[in-house]
């Protein structure tokens, strides 16, 4: 097999690529418009905000050198220029967005196809062994190039330095290429699309966090992440090209690995083989809630571990926030007058942002968890459950309750992670309650989003994708709401906008109770709708 000529092992790539484009003729434009549009909007919003040299200089001193900025966007050079500011403000959305995009798109057209059995039909035609991998690569790179080109063009359009804009775009494109290759390896390892997605997203998270941590501590850790390499091309500073070689070489190595794994595995197989399981169901599997829990076990464990680690990481950097401020004379002056109180306020602001940021991440969980209802229904599995005496109300209530309870539990786990990280970093263990309670102050927003997904499922099952749009909107509001100067009417759509910025402010009971009531109402409406509609499959 391995001696087969290259041409025959990749025969049919063109057909596959065209098929992918046809299947994604809505999905790809949505990514391009959504992600590209956000980048364009961000880039366009900066110049009017920083229209005097004083304001530009102020950005470098105050915004660009905060711990949050280091953690979220790394250490961008040239922050005393408009280009640096645009790059710094764009990088979080652009870098995370492009990496997550390729993970989702590439898995969708490789392992997901193989798992569904559709690829088997295709493989029976004149199609080479490596054609699917190569088509996945080409498709991923195409999407990456589109987004990178949009980024560079939008930077040029607002009058930024040409070399810097180009360097930034190339760095972004190569970062996307690395994650395309990582995803292609992941799809060889896992036999399920879900598993491959998990591996890919985990790789994005690790790369992003390692870079953030390295940037915050300003140490060598930055060089252990592709995010760091792309940033160290120093666009809008003294541009250098050799980190691009690191990105290129890593891409090539990973692609070679993927090709090797592909050549040595069976169709439908992977390195992570499923083991035989129990011949009998455990006692918990007798109720709708038990079944829902079991179906989401992997999802729950994965999120719990991930969010605990994320919390720990963020917690561990809190103690160094005062030092960071002290090391920056401008910031120290800025704070100095206020003394300890001002320093506490900055730490509190950091915490409030962390809480909010992590709460937004749990929105992703709660929507995925609630929408398992839709996935089960579309796969035709709900039918066999509803053919037993289990009623629609109990089936939907069980899954929704699980999702909401799990969201609260995950919030506590995140808070604990934060407290543990803080304890390890500072040696002080008296903040556990404060951190857990602070994180919990944001959970009503997450619950509203979950209940919104449940309402969609009951009322308009075909439009459950809107719940993901809601998550995107909330993320946009939290990350870019101030930068984009979104009108209050738009920001008010996000349930988090109404909640108090704990611990900077005290908890306000009214919005909390209102959002809990809204959650209950949305779930009730969803169940009402589900009881009235056809339980369609597919």
């Amino acid at each position, binding site marked *: 097999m391995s001696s087969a000529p290259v041409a025959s092992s990749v025969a049919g790539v063109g057909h596959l690529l065209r098929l992918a484009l046809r299947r994604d003729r809505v999905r790809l434009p949505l990514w391009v418009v959504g992600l590209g549009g956000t980048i364009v909007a961000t880039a366009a919003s900066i110049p009017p905000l920083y229209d005097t040299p004083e304001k530009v200089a102020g950005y470098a001193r105050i915004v660009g050198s905060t711990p949050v900025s280091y953690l979220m966007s790394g250490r961008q050079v040239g922050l005393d220029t408009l280009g640096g500011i645009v790059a710094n403000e764009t990088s979080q959305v652009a870098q995370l967005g492009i990496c997550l995009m390729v993970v989702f798109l590439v898995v969708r057209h490789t392992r997901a196809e193989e798992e569904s059995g559709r690829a088997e039909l295709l493989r029976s035609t004149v199609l080479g062994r490596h054609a699917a991998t190569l088509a996945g690569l080409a498709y991923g790179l195409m999407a990456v190039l589109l987004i990178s080109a949009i980024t560079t063009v939008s930077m040029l359009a607002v009058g930024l330095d040409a070399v810097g804009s180009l360097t930034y775009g190339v760095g972004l494109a190569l970062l996307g290429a690395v994650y395309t290759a990582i995803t292609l390896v992941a799809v060889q390892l896992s*036999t*399920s699309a879900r598993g491959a997605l998990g591996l890919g997203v985990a790789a994005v998270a690790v790369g992003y966090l390692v870079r953030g941590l390295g940037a915050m501590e300003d140490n060598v850790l930055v060089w252990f992440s592709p995010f760091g390499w792309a940033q160290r091309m120093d666009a809008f500073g003294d541009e250098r090209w050799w980190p691009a070689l690191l990105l290129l070489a890593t891409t090539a190595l990973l692609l070679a690995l993927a090709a090797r794994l592909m050549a040595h595995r069976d169709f439908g197989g992977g390195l992570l083989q*499923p083991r*035989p*399981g*129990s*011949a*009998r*169901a*455990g006692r918990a*599997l*007798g*109720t*709708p809630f038990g*079944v829902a829990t*079991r*179906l989401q*076990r*992997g999802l729950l464990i994965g999120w719990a571990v991930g969010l605990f680690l994320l919390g720990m990481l963020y917690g561990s950097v809190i103690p160094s926030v005062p030092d960071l401020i002290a090391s920056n004379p401008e910031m120290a002056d800025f704070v100095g007058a206020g003394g300890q109180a001002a320093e506490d306020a900055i730490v509190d602001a950091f915490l409030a942002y962390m809480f909010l940021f992590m709460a937004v991440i749990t929105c992703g969980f709660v929507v995925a968890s609630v929408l398992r209802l839709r996935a089960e229904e579309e*796969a*035709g*599995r709900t*039918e*066999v*459950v*509803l*053919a*037993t*005496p*289990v*009623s*629609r109300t109990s089936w939907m209530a069980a899954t929704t309750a699980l999702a909401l309870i799990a969201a609260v539990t995950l919030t506590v786990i995140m808070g604990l992670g934060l407290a543990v990280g803080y304890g390890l970093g500072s040696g002080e263990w008296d903040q556990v309650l404060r951190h857990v309670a602070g994180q919990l102050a944001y959970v009503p927003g997450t619950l509203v989003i979950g209940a919104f997904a449940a309402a969609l499922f009951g009322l308009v099952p075909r439009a459950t994708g809107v719940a993901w749009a809601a998550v995107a909107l909330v993320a946009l509001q939290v990350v870019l709401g101030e930068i984009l100067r979104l009108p209050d009417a738009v920001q008010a759509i996000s349930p988090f906008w109404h909640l108090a910025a704990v611990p900077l402010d005290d908890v306000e009971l009214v919005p909390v109770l209102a959002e809990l009531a809204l959650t209950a109402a949305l779930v009730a409406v969803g169940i009402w709708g589900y009881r*009235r*509609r*056809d*339980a*369609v*499959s597919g």
Partner: protein
Amino acid sequence: MAVIELHDIVKTFGATRALDHLDLTVEQGEVHGFLGPNGSGKSTTIRVLLGLLRADSGSATILGGDPWRDAASLHRRLAYVPGDVSLWPNLTGGEVIDVLARMRGGLDEARRREMIERFELDPTKKARTYSKGNRQKVALVAALASRADLYLLDEPTSGLDPLMEAEFQEAVHEVRAEGATILLSSHILAEAEALSDRISIIRAGRVVQTGTLAELRHLTRTTVIAETERPPTPITAVPGVHEPVMHGNRVTFDVDSDHLDAAVAALAELGVRSLAAHPPTLEELFLHQYGEEVSA
């Protein structure tokens, strides 16, 4: 007493009319074959009976209750095997059987063991790794291992090999002997022929024919192949004889069941050397039913 009573059921999906004034009656204790080509509305009918779909109009009764309103309580007494079985990929076959049986309110341990053995199912494998046939076996075991009054089986053997199909037929005979009622949808005519007491034929969302196999055959033609001593030309003049084909003294023709007597008498006058006749198979019933439509 009728276990299933559908009267004038209409169900539309947008512009598509899936069920078009459908009537269906299934009596207590019978195996009722529900025959029709793909897309004729068999699965839609079964989903209406399960309360998964709500009929636009018409009246539906199943086990004495309303399938939509009383779904949960009715489901205590019935078992269902879907046509396209989809299982939770990360649960084993054994776990799926237990989950469904427990949700239905308990299962017969001895029957569970027996069915798993009979269908040669490995219950420790993850559902993700099962073939279509094995997924179908899981659904069949889950349904047959619980004692139900009514079994709704939607093309239950489409993935099974002939040996497993024989096991399935035996299992159906057993549950019927225990007094259960079975609605068996199929496009495999031999299967319905082997199992059914009565048959309904559905076409484009409407039941076009219903009755026992004998009754349905009565409506149709018998195929006769004969060799006679004298040229068989006179046979073409007998009323009710269709499409005679002659090769010398050999003739093949179809004859309406009502005119079989006259046709045989006419053959006898010509001196019969050999004679073969067979009743219509369900294939021929089908062709008759649908052929009409095609030529019209």
